[in-house]
């Protein structure tokens, strides 16, 4: 059985369901609008300080949008009792997990595709290819960790409380390295190459670890 076929089928199914129900997109859109409003009215952003303040707004919006996006990935499966049906197939739990993470990542990338141009448009932040690369690399690691803990807490009643408690501490490396990379890409002091190297290292580490853990989390 081809794990890639399984992962793509799961991701396609999740995105198709989201397209039809629009459960998550309004909540994610709200976070983006809120982040832009806070940026606009909470800070005095102008051309001189845009590159100093917008990275903070960017990461705040992504962290909260990510918690919402990843939190629903397994909760809806549990509520519909459909996770067991998926796990009763010969498909590898790791491929199923990868598909869920892929769909959640795609949703967050859609948020980023709106947020990044908006930061440029409204605040005049320098959104270069380097900024986009840093954000995408951080998204990969945040997605796999977010989905893993979403799978863990989906069995519990207090999942909305537990997910941030478990996930946020492990997102810190991505927020720190991603923040440094975005700042240096926007012309602030810092070593972009070093920060991107760290992000790639963290991505590899957590993709491997979560793949190993996903089998046990989903299979039992």
């Amino acid at each position, binding site marked *: *059985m*081809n794990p890639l*076929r*399984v992962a793509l*089928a*799961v991701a396609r*199914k999740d995105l*198709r*369901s989201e397209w*039809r*129900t629009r459960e998550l997109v309004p909540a994610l859109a709200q976070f983006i609008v809120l982040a832009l409003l806070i940026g606009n009215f909470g800070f005095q952003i102008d051309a001189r300080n845009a590159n100093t303040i917008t990275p903070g707004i960017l990461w705040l919006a992504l962290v909260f949008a990510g918690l919402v996006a990843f939190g629903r990935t397994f909760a809806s499966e549990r509520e*519909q*009792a*459909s*996770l*067991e*049906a*998926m*796990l*009763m*197939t*010969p*498909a*590898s739990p790791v491929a*199923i997990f990868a598909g869920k993470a892929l769909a959640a990542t795609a949703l967050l990338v859609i948020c980023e595709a709106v947020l990044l141009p908006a930061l440029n448009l409204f605040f005049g932040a320098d959104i270069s290819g380097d900024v986009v690369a840093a954000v995408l690399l951080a998204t990969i690691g945040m997605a796999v960790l977010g989905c893993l803990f979403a799978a863990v807490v989906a069995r519990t009643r207090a999942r909305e409380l537990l997910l941030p408690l478990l996930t946020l501490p492990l997102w810190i490396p991505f927020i720190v390295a991603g923040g440094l990379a975005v700042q240096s890409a926007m012309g602030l002091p810092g070593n972009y190459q070093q920060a991107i190297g760290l992000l790639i290292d963290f991505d590899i580490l957590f993709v491997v670890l979560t793949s190993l853990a996903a089998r046990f989390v989903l299979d*039992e």
Partner: protein
Amino acid sequence: MSVIVADGLTHRFGAELALEAVDLVLDTGEHIAVLGDNGAGKTTLLRILATALRPTAGRLQIAGLDAFRERRRLRHYLGYVAHSPGLYPALSAIENLEFFCDLQDVNRTRAGEAVEIVGLGHMAHRRAAELSRGMQQRLAIARAILHEPRLLIMDEPNASLGSDAADLLTHVMRGRTVVLATHDQALANRLCPRTLVLRHGRSLGTATHLRVVQ
């Protein structure tokens, strides 16, 4: 040849004993009904037999393989209709089945065949959320037979099915080894020559339906 050999299956949910030392041997092509009141342990037993739940104690062999060591290999061999349909409400009936075709590694044309077998051909493009409970149950049965399993485990498959439940179940059970849990003794008698009765998680033994009635 024995398809299922269960020896002393026991399961606890915390301190609560849900199933106690249940033995069962089922030969190829045999149909057995599991009867019992609510909380008797029917669903727990079926989930263990379907390898969805690992028993606290006891051994289970399916088709000569250790059911829990080889459970991924056995997923090709068995089909399971769970207590709740577990469908994707935003997807149509056919999309639900096509998704599981991808996961079962079978051709997607099989989805069309399965939806016809359960009598949902005319509803194939309706979203699962728009189907009645009985139609959702039919869809869950269609999903369980997508990969032509030789062993079929069904937990209350007649729930909300309507008057032709027995005909549909007879059709999908043909040529397969079946374990079926139900409250409906008349249906059990009609579909299964053997019956296993559970009470408070304990097996009262297996027998032909005449002896159960007695």
